[in-house]
């Protein structure tokens, strides 16, 4: 009998514990559901606004909308319009709508350049009139890391190309350093040969003159002929010298053209490149944290150069 009584008491305790557990679980679930409702803004009064953007990049449903850094609402709708533009709907808490003036604009900003994108409502100068519900506000984008990276790339690519051009110019067998050195060497050899010839010829002329002077009285005619021969040889020799000098000048000019002026500041450029490469390397891992943009849409423009109204 006592055994049965004990069993009934145990069964009653288990039943009570199970009931308590079920009540607590049900209450927890209800609290969670209520919290989700509050979080999703289903129980608050809101005012709707909209704006039109050229692309849905960095804009998503549920994204925070802020005023002066405080979250006041969220993006309720993002849709593609017929003309390819993106229509975006916003829900702002009714009690915060007093800050949304009729000339307010919406700016897409990134927290600390690489953080999550947020939409900031920037109130306009005229505080006397508020924006009506469903009003369409102006929209603009602040430059983020992507734009910054592109800017760096635009600066960096021309420098790399310059470096490539310099390297190619220097390595060129014909016009580069090897060719230039070979030509200078050849020219130097030619000059040496020329000078040696000149010396020999001058010596020869000198010797002939001495001999002729000794016979001057005897044969003035012979002296005239010798001088005439020297006169004939000398201009040719001078011409050749001039040709060699011209050649050297040409080589120098070519070297000046083919080696870009940036070479003069080679060390500065190298330092800059090193800095840029270092910076790019450091920021590289961050790129994996940036969301991919959507397909781009260009605004329709059937007359990009304004040629329809070409003056006659």
């Amino acid at each position, binding site marked *: 009998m006592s055994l049965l009584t004990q069993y009934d008491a145990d069964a009653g305790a288990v039943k009570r514990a199970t009931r308590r*557990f*079920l009540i607590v*679980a*049900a209450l*927890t*679930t209800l609290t*969670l*559901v209520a919290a*989700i409702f509050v979080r999703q803004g289903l129980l608050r009064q809101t005012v709707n606004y909209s704006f039109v953007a*050229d*692309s849905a*990049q960095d804009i998503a449903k549920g994204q925070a909308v802020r005023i002066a850094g405080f979250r006041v609402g969220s993006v309720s709708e993002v849709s593609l319009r*017929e*003309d*390819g533009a993106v229509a975006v709907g916003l829900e702002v808490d009714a009690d915060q709508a007093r800050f949304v003036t009729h000339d307010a604009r919406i700016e897409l900003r990134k927290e600390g350049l690489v953080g999550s994108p947020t939409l900031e409502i920037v109130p306009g100068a005229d505080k006397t009139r508020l924006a009506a519900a469903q009003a369409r506000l102006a929209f603009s984008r602040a430059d983020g890391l*992507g*734009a910054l990276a*592109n800017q760096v790339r*635009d600066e960096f690519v021309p420098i790399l190309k310059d470096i490539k051009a310099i390297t190619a110019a220097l390595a060129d067998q014909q016009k580069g350093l090897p060719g230039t050195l070979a030509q200078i060497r050849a020219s130097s050899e030619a000059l040496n040969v020329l000078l040696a010839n000149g010396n020999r010829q001058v010596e020869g002329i000198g010797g002939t003159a001495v001999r002729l002077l000794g016979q001057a009285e005897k044969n003035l005619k012979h002296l005239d002929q010798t001088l005439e021969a020297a006169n004939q040889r000398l201009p040719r020799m001078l011409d050749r010298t001039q040709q060699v000098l011209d050649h050297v000048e040409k080589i120098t000019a070519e070297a000046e053209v083919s080696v870009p002026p940036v070479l003069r500041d080679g060390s500065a450029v190298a330092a800059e490149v090193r800095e840029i490469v270092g910076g790019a390397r450091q920021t590289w891992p961050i790129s994996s944290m940036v969301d*991919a*943009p*959507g*397909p*781009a*849409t*260009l*605004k*329709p*423009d*059937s*007359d*990009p*150069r*304004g*040629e*329809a*109204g*070409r*003056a*006659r």
Partner: protein
Amino acid sequence: MRVEWVLVAAIAASACGSAPKSVEPPRLKAALEVESDGARRYQRGDFVLAERRFEEAARRFAGIDDEAGGLRNRLHLARTRLALGRADAALELLGSLPADSPRDIEALLLKGQALLALGRVAEAGQALAAAEPRCGKDCGQLPSLKILLARTALADGRATAARLHADAALELLANDEHGQETANAWRVLAAARLADLDPPGALAAAKAALAIDRRLALPEKIARDWLLIGDAHRGSLRDKAFGAAVEASRAYQRGLDIANAEGLSEISLTASLALKAIGMQKIPAE
């Protein structure tokens, strides 16, 4: 016990209410980034860099066998080449696109633009005629189609038809008062009115185009708008000879100044010739 597990599962499910974030494959992401950068350059008017980006994006999309992305970027590329004044290159590119692509209307409109720029008016008309039935009465590109039809009619000497098409485009663009296409429609309407011997109407339309183009800061279009304003004043020379000539010369001079500042040699030449033609090389002070 079963009820308890169900409750636990319900709690877990409610906690995981948010949708999982989609992750793009790295190569697709890279291609989209290049495309997006090209679009940004295009909007800024930096067409040379935009062209390079779109070329690269088209190559990247081709590399991952993404036909839609490739096609989209080749169309962007054609538009950029048109903006650069390289209509022949744009036409060559458009010729290589498949005829029955999902974006054939856009391709036909671009082809029409390229042919107009090359002075091949009859062929431009054919391209636009092919686009008309595909576009129907409510396609998104209808305003652009109307503007191009107006330009074709104008180039063909049919000023009245050009006016009608331009008016229709403006009607369709009634909700887009500050867009580029609205300015384009006003500009072609101004040229059509001028050709239809209506200088006051042309002047009003050209000023409307100028107001939008100035707001959008588009130098080439602003310069051409000024030339058009000069033409409109010049067209009314008979009525008020000296005043109109002064106004025309001021407008041409403004066009010339903008063209010189932007290095637009063709417009500079046109403005200089127009100034010479009205014999007003020295502009009276305002």
